Structure formats: C-alpha cells, structure tokens
C-alpha cells in the first residue's frame, strides 16, 4: 500500500453516512497561480486591491448572464437531499463538502449584497459580508469540488453545484486569485497546443514511436498520422493519450479501429488537446478560445469529420458546448454528428461487422466499467437518451467475455467521481483526491470480492490518471485501470496480423 502523510479512509462495512467533522479539510487550498499564468488568460496577475468590490461586481454580472446561476442562488430550500451525495463529503466528512454547504459559501454573499432579506436581516437568513475569511473558504472549498454533478441529479430543483463552483472560480480569477494547475495548463494550450506543452516535433516523434510499437506487436503497419491535410477525420484526443499509461494503449486502439475501418484520419499539432480546462474555471471566453483551435485545425486540414478520443470533461465540452462555442460546423460532412465520440465510431464499426474480433484475447481480464461523471451526467452518445451508458458497455462486451457492473447506486447517472476531476488532478491536492475516491473504491472492492473482477475500464484521461495514483492507497494495483480502447486494441485482429 502506498505511504500517505494523511489517514487513508477505511472501507465502510455498511455505506452509512459519516459523522461530520467541521473544518477537517480547512487549508490554504491548492497552489495559487503566478501572475504570468493569470495574465495569459486575461485575468489580473494577483489579488487586486479592491477585490471585495470587484468580486461583487463580477457576481452581479454573472447573475445577469447565467440563468442557472441566478435560479440556483434563489431556489435552494435547504431540504438536505444532497447532503450525503458528494464523494468528498463521504471521504473527508468536512461539512463544507456537503453540496448545499459548498453552494452556501457563495449564496451567503449573494444574499448579503443582492437580496432584500440578506441586506436587512443578514443573521436571520445566514447572509455574510465578503471578507478575507470568506474568500479563503471560497478558494479552499471550491477547489474541493470536482464539478461531477452527482448532487444535481438528486436536487429537487436540479441545482448544480458544478455551475456554482465554476462561477466561484470565475469570480476569483477575475479578481486575480487563480489556481495554478488549471490556469498554467490553459496557458500551455494557447501557447503550444496541448495541456502537456508537447511541441510538434516531440509529438511527431511520439506518434512515430507508436506506429513502430503497433507494427512490432502485430506485424501490421498502422499509421498514426499528424497534420495530414485532406484526411477524412480529425482526431482530437487528450494529450495524456500520447504518453501516459493506460491512456496510450487506448490511442493504439483508436488507430487500429481507424485502420481496420479503412478511413483516413489525422491528429493536429495545433489542436493536439481534447481537454478544455476553461470549463473547470467557469470561463466562457477561455473555453471558447480553446474550442476555436479545434475549429481552426479542422478548417486548415480540410477534414470532413471530427472525432474525440476518450476524455470525460472534453466530451462534455465537445458534445454539449462545442457547437455553441465554435460552431456552426457547416463545413463538415452533414452525414455525421459533430463531433463524434470514438466509441460511437467503434460501436458503429462493430455493428456493421467491419472489425474482426477475437474476444478470447481479453480472457485474462474480468472487467467492470467506471462511468466518468462528465460523460454520464454532462453528455450523450449515439443520439439516444442513456447512450453514454449503453455504448461503452456494448463495446466492452463485444471485445471481452467477462464483464460485471458495479452496484447500481454507483453507475450510470449515479456514478461516483474518481476523485480527481474538475481541475483537481494535481499533487498539491493528493489528500483530497485519495479521500474523494473512497465511494468508487468501495464499489470496486465489492465486485472484486464478489465477481472476481480484475480490472476497471474507463473512458476519461483524468479518471485513468487519478486511479493510477489512488488505487495503491486502497490496496489495489495501479495497473487495475484500463482504457476501453485498450480492450478493443487487444481483441481486434487486423488484416495480415502475424501474432
């Protein structure tokens, strides 16, 4: 088991709701971003002098721009339905990690400055002035929300804490208080084209290496093209797919599927990133700037279709926001949805019988599937409600003989976050990440014990990285996490394959 400087939560015998321990997760929050990271995103470099005034002004501006934010600020009746739904509450027991309590950090200020009751009877309705203490709480606790939207599923008014935490981060950024991890990464996308800061020559090198690996494994020359004008498909995939395990095995899977399908495709070095951390910081403008790179790349390369690789929040931005942010995509082939998910593509190929599959090649695996929150609750697939639950499972079952789902309370739209989403996948938040993974780890342990599950497959770069890190804290091997297209890659037999 990995060594930790903090107490790793123990598996609960029964999933009872823990007793609250106020302030156990109170801290200074994640690393604060440097002035140059802030300025690259058009935010003040550091906390401005009149930040109280500016923050309230920004809040007012956002209340007028976002209906959700306004309705959510007014509508909560404190019924308590959400209080036990957050994985961070379950893992940390800090009451400010209850969704409603997290929302109230912003709502108390909203009430003080924007409502009659809060202006005249602040104590009665729990309204508070925006002080440094409140700002500190904002910074700390709005970076303990992975914006997974599980609470919004259970709220009778659909109040979405993700929207509120995004708004809070946007307000903080606008007064010069940003989170280093997210903002530095967005800056890299603007400057280089991807979260990793992987420049074109390095990317070309990596992809060529990948071609060699596939040829070594299969004896077949499968291409992984970069910046090829006139290709049919632009593949936009998280940059983690270019180097991290098990992500890269997934990328090899996409390449094999494209190869077997006989389509021409390419990766773009200009838009070599599916991830869009602009969403995490709640910034419409930065999210749009990142999205426009994909549009520009598609136009420059003259592709007909855009396909996204396995990435959770990227697929939410792609499915739900891309048309809004960077559309209309009338220059692409209207016969295909824009954009498509790689699983929609692969599923289509399987249904058309275009892939030769030997399921027994995955017989060493007994697989379960982790629904990534942004895919499950923020997007769709296949044009049918719930397609995002059906298609990944159908693909897994088509390439793998042994599949078991985890407990119904922890899958589909009730899935638990991996603990590292929403811009929290940074080492300075490791304690939070480990604790937040508890409910998912419990559900995994259940199928491991009862069905002999050996591996968990996922379709999100963040989930895969997070699980690689946190699985050992719970006594599992770090290689227990797989890419779905890794399973596809294992089972697909290419024409002329030698092994």
């Amino acid at each position, binding site marked *: 088991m990995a060594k930790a400087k903090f107490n790793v939560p123990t598996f609960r015998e029964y999933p009872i709701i823990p007793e609250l321990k106020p302030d156990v997760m109170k801290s200074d929050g994640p690393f604060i971003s440097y002035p140059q990271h802030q300025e690259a995103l058009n935010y003040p470099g550091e906390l401005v002098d009149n930040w109280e005034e500016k923050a309230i002004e920004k809040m007012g501006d956002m209340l007028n721009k976002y209906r959700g934010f306004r309705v959510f600020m007014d509508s909560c009746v404190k019924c308590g339905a959400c209080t036990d739904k957050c994985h961070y509450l379950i893992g940390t027991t800090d009451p400010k990690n209850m969704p409603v309590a997290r929302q109230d950090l912003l709502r108390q200020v909203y009430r003080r400055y924007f409502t009659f009751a809060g202006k005249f009877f602040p104590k009665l309705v729990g309204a508070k002035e925006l002080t440094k203490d409140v700002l500190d709480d904002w910074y700390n606790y709005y970076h303990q929300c992975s914006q997974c939207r599980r609470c919004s599923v259970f709220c*009778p008014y659909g109040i979405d804490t993700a929207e509120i935490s995004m708004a809070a981060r946007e307000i903080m950024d606008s007064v010069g208080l940003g989170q280093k991890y997210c903002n530095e990464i967005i800056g890299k996308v603007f400057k280089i084209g991807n979260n990793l800061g992987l420049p074109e020559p390095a990317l070309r090198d990596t992809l060529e290496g990948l071609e060699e690996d596939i040829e070594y494994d299969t004896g077949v020359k499968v291409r992984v093209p970069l910046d090829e004008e006139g290709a049919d498909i632009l593949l936009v995939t998280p940059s983690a797919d270019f180097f991290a395990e098990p992500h890269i095995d997934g990328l090899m899977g996409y390449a094999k599927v494209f190869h077997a399908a006989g389509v021409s495709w390419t990766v773009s070095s200009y838009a070599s990133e599916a991830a869009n951390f602009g969403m995490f910081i709640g910034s419409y403008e930065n999210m749009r700037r990142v999205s426009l790179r994909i549009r520009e790349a598609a136009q420059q390369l003259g592709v007909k279709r855009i396909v996204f690789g396995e990435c959770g929040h990227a697929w939410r931005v792609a499915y739900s926001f891309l048309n809004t942010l960077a559309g209309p995509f009338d220059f692409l082939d209207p016969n295909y949805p824009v954009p498509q998910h790689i699983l929609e593509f692969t599923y289509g190929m399987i249904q058309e019988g275009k892939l030769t599959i030997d399921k027994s090649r995955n017989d060493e695996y007994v697989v379960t599937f982790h629904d990534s929150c942004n895919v499950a609750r923020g997007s769709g697939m296949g044009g049918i409600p719930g397609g995002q639950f059906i298609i990944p499972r159908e693909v897994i079952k088509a390439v793998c003989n042994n599949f078991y789902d985890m407990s119904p309370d922890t899958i589909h739209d009730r899935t638990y976050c991996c603990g590292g989403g929403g811009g929290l996948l940074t080492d300075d938040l490791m304690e939070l990440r480990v604790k937040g993974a508890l409910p998912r780890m419990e559900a995994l342990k259940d199928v491991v014990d009862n069905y002999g599950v050996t591996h968990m497959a996922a379709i999100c770069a963040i989930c895969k990285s997070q699980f690689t890190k946190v699985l050992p804290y719970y006594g599992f091997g770090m290689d227990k996490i797989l890419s779905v297209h890794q399973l596809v890659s294992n089972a697909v037999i290419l024409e002329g394959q030698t092994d």
Partner: protein
Amino acid sequence: MGFLTALYALLFYFAFAVLIIGVGRKVYQYATTPAPLKIPTMPAPRTKTGAALRVLSEVIFFRSLFRSNKWIWVFAIMFHYGLLLVTIRHLRYFIEPVWWWVELAQPFGKYAGFIMIIGLLGLLVRRIAVERIRYISNPSDYLMLALLIVIGASGAMVSFVTRTDIVQFKAFMLGVMYFDWQPIPADFTLLVHLTAVIALMFIFPISKLLHAPGVFFSPTRNQVDSSREKRHLAPWAAELEARKS
C-alpha cells in the same frame, strides 16, 4: 367600519401587491436571463415535450427528491399536497357561487390540513435531529416551517375547535375583493391565521419560497438534449463572437 376590518383589508391589498409584483419581477428576471450553455443533467429528453414532462415530473412527483431521500420525499409530498387541497378548499371564501370542483374538494380539504401539519412537523424534526440538515439550517429555515405550522394549526383550530362566523368572514373577503368592505369577525384564532398568511405573502418573493417559480426555470431540468443538432447561442455570446472575429 371597525379598525380591524380596515387594518386587515389594507394588509391584504398590500401583501397581495407585494406577492404579485415581487414574484412577477423574479419570474421576469428568470425568464429574461439567458442560459448561454446547454447544461441539462444527462441523460435528458431529446424533445421539448420530453423536457416539459421532465419538469412536470419534478413539480408533480418530486422525482429527483424521490430518488434522493424517501423520508424527505414523504414529508414534502404530505405538506405540499395537503397545502394544495387546503388551498382549493379555501377558494370557497373568494367566489360566489362556489365552483363544483371546489365543493367536491371540501371534505378532503378539511382533513388535508392535518396531513399538511404532519408533513411540516416531519420536516421540522428532521431539520433539528439530522446533523447534516441542522448544519445547513439558518434561523429563517426554522421560522419558515414554524410560520407554516402556525398557519396550519390556527386554520385547523378555526375549523374544528374555536369556530368562527364563516359566513361573515366570506362577506369580509368578498368585500375586500370588490372594494365594498364588510366587518371582519374578530376572533383571535382567525386573526392569528390571517396574520400568518399575510406574513407568508410578504415573505414569498424574498425567500427560498422562490423555489416554486424557480423549478420551472432550472436549466438542468428544462433543457433539451439537442446540442449537436441545433446550435444554442445566447445573445451576449453572439455579441462576444461578433466583437472578436
């Protein structure tokens, strides 16, 4: 014309104006604030009819609350449907002749008050006894339940215990409505009941009771899953586009 009659008549006018203007202003605000991004909690309906049905399933059945917590759901349903029946029954004091369906609701409405009070007490007990809900409660959250319990209990008292000259009360209410004031029956319990109701009307547009109009405007519940097929663009986002490109 007695002082009490004038006082309550004027309070009713004032409270009614505050309620209508206050809630109207909020509804206008909700309706005119754009929702720049498609954020329905997925999976979401693919059609407008589907989305409307989804909102109705929240309004009528409290569907998400049912999935979330059965105890809160039971008490919330008891309170809201109790209140609905009671309110329908109360229409008889504002109309002459009384509509047939209001007549029909009369016997149910009388006892629905108890269901409503039990629901409210259940919610109050949970608010006090469940640590998590106690933590998130402000004084106003307790007072709101207390006010509703006062309304329910005083109403039941008037109906079943102290009694009042209900014919005279109806004359007062109709008089207020048609600006032809008639004396109000000056029973203590009735006046407590009316005062609490008037207070509720004042509080409605400045409190969490705005969840009632709010639920219809919640983008996570009322949006259609059609973002790939149909471009969704808020006016301010369109302006931003025009400026930048």
